[in-house]
């Protein structure tokens, strides 16, 4: 949909406002660009509608190089919402919204219909608001109009430059919710510049983090929170958000002592052991504790009549395992992906160190939640 290929913006004084950015934005995706001021996020966005021209590299929209297009026509097909709202104070709300449709030479009836439709969409009754002037509306209402004005010409792409940052916190929250709602209906490709991390996490499908003109990381909020690429991202996203993840217990804390056996042991003996510990599988190790496989109660039962068989013959060698050095969330993923009840924990030299089961996870998580609630309430949607 929108593709940046090696795009740079260099000013005369050799200042790299945007430094060789590669970016691939998919159709219908909500992208947030975030970074400290001067990081080039706004510049990056403004290059999409050529309010700022790239010094080098190409930007493609629908596979076409925007450098070859008339910037004026290009902009009429890209919605644009700015921080300072920018409604034309000498025109009514209706005329403000109809601006781009008029520029695109829609007929009057179609313009009127579109204006009414959009006003209703953000809960401003057309009859009441159409003929008012921007100054008669509250800040929140004005920016609602600003947003629908950007949608008026039905552009596939909408650019938003810190659209809610000048609003009071309550209106901001409301408009964010409305925008999310709206987006589920209209599915536009949205590029949203912000310096508010909570806003980015709340709204965006993917977040691009910028620093000194470079795109440091471009990923889903989830992945960025879990795997910040460097210290900058970590501190930028704030210790609080990261700590919630880091306070996830380690594998070592969660794992329990496994019930193991050796490959040459007989089946009857093994069944007795399993009954004693009330377990359905035995972990098989050799003398040096190297993990060999798992013998399940089903396999043992099936071959029980064969007195010559030992554990080695019935064990399953192809079981998912986890390293001690891995993160707990990876272990959880493994369990759910493979639909297994447990994961053997191995060290670097393949020695069996422990076992993670669904039950042991629940125990630890429950403790975790309890202690979190005693301290700070966990923020929804971020941790696990």
């Amino acid at each position: 949909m929108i593709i940046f290929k090696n795009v740079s913006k260099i000013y005369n004084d050799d200042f790299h406002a945007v430094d060789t950015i590669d970016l691939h934005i998919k159709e219908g995706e909500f992208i947030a660009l975030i970074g400290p001021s001067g990081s080039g996020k706004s510049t990056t966005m403004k290059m999409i509608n050529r309010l700022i021209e790239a010094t080098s590299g190409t930007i493609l929209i629908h596979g076409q190089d925007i450098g070859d297009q008339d910037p004026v026509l290009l902009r009429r097909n890209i919605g644009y919402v700015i921080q300072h709202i920018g409604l034309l104070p000498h025109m009514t709300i209706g005329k403000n919204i109809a601006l781009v449709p008029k520029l695109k030479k829609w007929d009057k009836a179609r313009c009127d219909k579109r204006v009414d439709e959009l006003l209703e969409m953000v809960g401003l009754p057309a009859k009441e608001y159409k003929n008012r002037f921007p100054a008669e509306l509250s800040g929140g209402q004005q920016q609602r109009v600003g947003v629908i004005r950007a949608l008026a010409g039905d552009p596939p792409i909408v650019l938003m430059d810190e659209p809610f940052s000048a609003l009071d916190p309550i209106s901001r929250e409301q408009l964010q919710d409305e925008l999310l709602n709206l987006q589920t209906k209209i599915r536009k490709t949205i590029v949203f510049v912000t310096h508010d991390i909570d806003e980015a996490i709340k709204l965006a499908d993917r977040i691009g983090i910028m620093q000194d003109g470079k795109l440091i990381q471009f990923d889903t909020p989830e992945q960025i929170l879990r795997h910040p690429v460097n210290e900058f991202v970590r501190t930028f996203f704030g210790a609080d958000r990261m700590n919630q993840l880091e306070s996830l217990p380690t594998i070592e804390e969660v794992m329990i002592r496994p019930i193991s056996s050796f490959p040459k042991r007989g089946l009857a003996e093994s069944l007795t052991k399993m009954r004693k510990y009330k377990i359905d599988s035995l972990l098989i190790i050799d003398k040096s504790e190297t993990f060999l496989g798992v013998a399940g109660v089903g396999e043992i039962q099936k071959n029980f009549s064969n007195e010559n068989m030992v554990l080695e013959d019935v064990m399953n060698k192809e079981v998912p395992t986890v390293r001690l050095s891995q993160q707990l969330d990876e272990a959880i993923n493994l369990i759910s992906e493979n639909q297994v009840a447990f994961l053997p924990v191995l060290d670097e030299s393949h020695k069996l160190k422990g076992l993670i089961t669904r039950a042991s996870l629940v125990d630890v998580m429950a403790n975790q939640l309890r202690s979190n609630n005693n301290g700070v309430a966990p923020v929804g949607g971020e941790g696990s």
Partner: protein
Amino acid sequence: MMFNNFLIMLQNRWPEIMIGTWEHIQLTLVALFIGNLIALPLGILLTRKRKLAEAVIGITSVFQTIPSLALLGFMIPFFGIGFGPAIVALSIYALLPILRNTYTGILGVNQAVVDAGTGMGMTSRQVLFMIEIPLALPIIMAGIRTATVMVIGVATLAALVGAGGLGDIIFRGIAMARQDLILAGAIPAALLSMIFDYILKRIEIAVQP
């Protein structure tokens, strides 16, 4: 008694006063027309070429500092005497207020609104005519108003370069030491100034966005 005399004089001189007033109005309107014709586009142009602005506005300010009588005097060696040179001098006088107000008026338009317009796909001409000029109009009008009042005042001096107008009557009155004659020129000039100012003020209010 004295008032009666004044009225009789007015009656006798009425055609003369009317001619003077008419010439005065002509001088003013033509000078303002030329002044606007130059200053409005120039002011707009300067907002697009801001590096030039300081120099150009500086030069017009220098003209403004030349005493009006001296400026009219300067015209004589170049353009001789009469209506033409007076118009040149008056137009130069009208330039600065219009130019400066047009320039600052347009620059003063909220940049966010201009950005929004450009970002929505307006051509720079559309931005100018749909956003910048409408929003700057009150300030531009104020400049035209200032210029008008100034030109009406300076136009009384145009009589000195043979351009006629109400100044003719005033200067004749001064030469003949006749106060009634001075007033016969001064009062219409003052009225003219007030009427023009009032009309333009109404226009200014009418164009308020």
